[in-house]
C-alpha cells in the first residue's frame, strides 16, 4: 500500500465511521450492505424512540446522568439537539419511566457503537481483500 493510498484508506474508514454515527446503519449503506443497514436503522431508531416515548425527552439530561448521556450520544450527534431542549429542566422525569427510558436510549446508543465499529472493520476488510485481489492479478 503506497503512503497516498494508505491516507485515502484511513480517510475512507473515517468517513464510514462518521456516517455510521450520523445515521444509524449509514456506514453499512455506504459499503453497499443495504439489508444490514435497513435492519440496523429501523431497530436502533425504534429502540431510541421507544425510550423517549416511555421516559419523554427528559431522559436526555447530562447534568444529572452524564454516563447515560455518553451512551445516548452514540446514537447520533442529533441527540445533542435534544439535550439543548432539555437543558433548562422543563421536562422532569423520575422513577421507573426515567430508568426504562434511560436504559432504552442508552442501549440503542451502545448498539449503534457496535455497528460503527463493525462498519469500519468491514470497510477495512474490503480494502484488504481488494488489495489482495489486485496483487494476484
Amino acid at each position, binding site marked *: 500500500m503506497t503512503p497516498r493510498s494508505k491516507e485515502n484508506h484511513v480517510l475512507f474508514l473515517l468517513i464510514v465511521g462518521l456516517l455510521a454515527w450520523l445515521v444509524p446503519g449509514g456506514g453499512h449503506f455506504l459499503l453497499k450492505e443495504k439489508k444490514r443497514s435497513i435492519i440496523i436503522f429501523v431497530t436502533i431508531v425504534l429502540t431510541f424512540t421507544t425510550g423517549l416515548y416511555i421516559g419523554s*425527552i427528559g431522559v436526555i439530561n447530562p447534568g444529572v446522568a452524564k454516563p447515560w448521556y455518553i451512551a445516548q450520544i452514540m446514537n447520533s450527534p442529533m441527540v445533542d439537539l435534544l439535550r439543548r431542549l432539555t437543558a433548562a429542566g422543563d421536562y422532569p422525569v423520575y422513577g421507573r419511566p426515567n430508568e426504562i427510558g434511560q436504559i432504552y436510549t442508552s442501549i440503542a446508543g451502545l448498539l449503534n457503537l457496535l455497528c460503527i465499529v463493525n462498519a469500519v472493520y468491514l470497510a477495512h476488510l474490503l480494502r484488504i481483500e481488494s488489495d489482495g485481489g489486485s496483487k494476484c492479478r
Partner: protein
Amino acid sequence: MSIIGALVVASFTAPEKIGANPQSMLWLLPLVAAIAVVYKATKLPEIKTGNFLKEVVILFGSIVVFMIIAGLVLCVLSWLITE
C-alpha cells in the same frame, strides 16, 4: 403544525405512567429483541430472511432463559441469606 403532529410531539414531552411492579420487568423483552436483531445483523456473514429470523429467535431465547436462571439463583441466594 397539524393536530396529529402536535399530539405526536406532545407524547414525547411527558413520561408514561409505569409503576414499580413486577409487570414493569416485561419492558426488558423488546430491548432484548432489539439487542438480538442488531447483534445478529452485524455478525451473520449473509442476511437471508429465514436464517436471520432463526438466529435472532435463538439468541433472544438464550438471553431470556439466562436472565430467568440468574433471577432464580439470586432469589435462592437471598432466601438462604435471610432465612
